[in-house]
């Protein structure tokens, strides 16, 4: 199915209308996702305010170095994703393919750093329900780490979905099932999702690592 123009589904009258619908659909979806993470930020903020001392003690146990490296990696992946969208618009297939693969690799690198962090924290007893005894005296510090694992986990799941999507786009480019610039909209939409997951981290990182340090 390598049509020159994207196929128009029966409910639409014109390809432009379909593109607009796809874009709007993704933006609405992202608004919904923002509310999903909004609830997590709400809980985190409330506990930062109720238990400042315990939050300070807990935050200080996080590894700032890997946190910063992870953030840098993720921000770089956003750059490559943006380059992929640009390349797709201009119909440069090889270039798009290279930056998409780069995005996947950077995404995987971030996930690897995060998994490393989790194991490291587990070894220090910072995963409260299991493993070595929890090192901090304040009960609310456990609360912090519970939220830490859920919020970083939720983010990692979203990033994993993003990696699969980008890899899928790269694969269909490679096998010539997807033509550029005709299917730019697909790259754009995957790109939007990727940037969204990235922005979530840009808020999550200071909330978890910096605010109470």
């Amino acid at each position, binding site marked *: 199915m390598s049509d020159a123009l994207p196929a128009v*589904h*029966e*409910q*639409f*009258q014109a390809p432009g*209308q379909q593109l*607009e*619908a796809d874009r*709007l*659909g993704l933006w*609405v*979806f992202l*608004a*919904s*996702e923002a*509310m*999903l*993470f*909004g*609830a*997590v930020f*709400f*809980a985190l903020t*409330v*506990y930062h305010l*109720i*238990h400042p001392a*315990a939050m300070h003690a807990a935050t200080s146990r996080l590894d700032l170095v890997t946190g910063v490296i992870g953030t840098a990696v993720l921000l770089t992946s956003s750059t490559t994703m943006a380059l992929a969208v640009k390349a797709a618009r201009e119909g440069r297939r090889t270039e798009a393919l290279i930056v998409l693969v780069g995005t996947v690799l950077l995404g995987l690198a971030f996930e690897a750093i995060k998994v490393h962090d989790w194991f490291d924290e587990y070894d220090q007893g910072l995963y*409260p*329900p*299991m493993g070595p005894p929890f090192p901090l005296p*304040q*009960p*609310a510090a*456990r*609360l912090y780490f*519970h*939220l830490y*694992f*859920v919020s970083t986990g*939720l983010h990692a799941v979203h990033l994993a979905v993003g990696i699969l999507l980008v890899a899928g786009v790269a694969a269909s480019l490679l096998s010539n099932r997807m033509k550029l610039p005709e299917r730019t909209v697909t790259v754009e939409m995957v790109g939007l999702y990727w940037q969204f997951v990235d922005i979530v981290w840009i808020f999550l990182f200071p909330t978890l690592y910096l605010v109470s340090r």
Partner: protein
Amino acid sequence: MTAEAKKAPPKSYIEDGHTLRSWFFSTDHKGIAVLYLVSITLFFFVGGAAATLIRLELLSPNGFILSNDAYNRLFTIHGVIMVWFFLIPSIPNTFGNFLIPIMIGAKDLAFPKLNLASWWIFVFAGCFVIAALLIGGVDTGWTFYAPFSTMFSNGYVIPAVVGVFISGFSTILTGLNFIVTVHRLRAPGMTWFRLPLFVWSIYATSLVMVLATPVLATTLLLIFAERVFGLGFFDPQLGGDPVLYQHMFWFYSHPAVYIMVLPAFAVMSELMTAFSKKHIFGYKVIAFSSLAIAGLGFLVWGHHMFVAGESVYVGLVFSVLSFTIAVPSAIKVFNWTATMRKGYVSFDAPMLFALGFIGLFVIGGLTGLFVAATGLDVHLTRTYFVIAHFHFIMVGGTVSCYFGALHFWWPKMTGRMYPEMPGRIVALLIFFGFMLTFMPQFILGWLGMPRRYHLYPPEFQVLNVLSSAGASILAVAYTAPLFYLAWSLFYGKRAGLNPWGAAGLEWMIPSPPPRENFETVPVVTWEAYPYPLEPQPVAKEDGR
């Protein structure tokens, strides 16, 4: 389903296929609407059976058929099923699905496959909740309040929470689909202010669905993580705050009240105009009040926690905001009644449901002001007064409109008229049965009978027996349409294009509509509700 003899060339959506596959995997919005109709009817009767047992048990002050635990499980399952598996999908997913593309002159929703997926997700979610019910039930109440739900409950919280979590995806996808459809698929000439008010109200509902449901998802995820992985979030021993849970839950669940009632408003605007044969009074005001309700609905959740340890100042703000949201709701009611003035009002069954709605919704709305007042709420909270208040809104309001919509659009969906007299009798029975069921509960609540207990002092028995008597009338009235509507599928009079003489694109195409809805894309040159109708433009637009 029904093999109807037809001679018109375009086959109706019902005749489009006769296999199971053509029903369960069709992306046609009308077929999916029928799937939703059947599945939520099943859930309605499961939830209704629980309510029946609750009312039976409350006949006696000592509790004579159920244990404490069984009673807790019954009212929980009643709440969970009625809220998430009947009320929330009721009008949007059946009538919204069926009508929105037709009303705006489109062939389908913007994302038909997503629409089908959302039904399958809904059914998959329902399986978890039914499983939770079958293996022993949940005893937390539909609100799943922490820390009881997370630390102490011995019910099957996990499958219930997972079921509600998954059903949320169905809600979000439906809302997303409606929003994009209304923005992008309107027929030429169908401007925003020519849209039927049904579409405006469902659009406002969709905004709430998309923005509120994810917050519930996170909240349920936290319950799940606490119960399964032992990650405490609301555990007071860790310094966790159970009131935080309540804030997060009601941040979703109060807007969810508007997910349930805005679609009823949608139906009301259609019914009042069709049976008054008159242009709606104050079109734009009604359209914008729908959006105002959707917006303000996000700012009132704190009125559920006046006595839960919320600061007095926060309570005052939430109280004022809750009073404010009554304004757009009241505007709508005034406009609907003003629409009837000097109209040619006829009292067919759908109109009786609509008038019943006005009576019940006004009582529900005004008692909402009682519980929104911080001082009075201290006395009334967690009593039967609250139960009666929200049943007046959700059951008296929304379910009345759901039945009104079912009767009004039944000829369009099936091509057959329902029998009029049973319809009218049911409309009256629902109104009076409802009054008898829930009016005594206001008094019980005022006298101090707490909700969620099945034992009560003997002096409350008379009012409880009255309430149960009303419930038995409701049980008959809710079951009867099942029989006469099924009968009408085979023996009902053929409906024709427009049995009501109503305005709107849906009444200009055959009943039941063809798979594609419109042979040619309609061009809209008229405002919404162009009453009194001239027969010419109707016939011309239909092309036959």
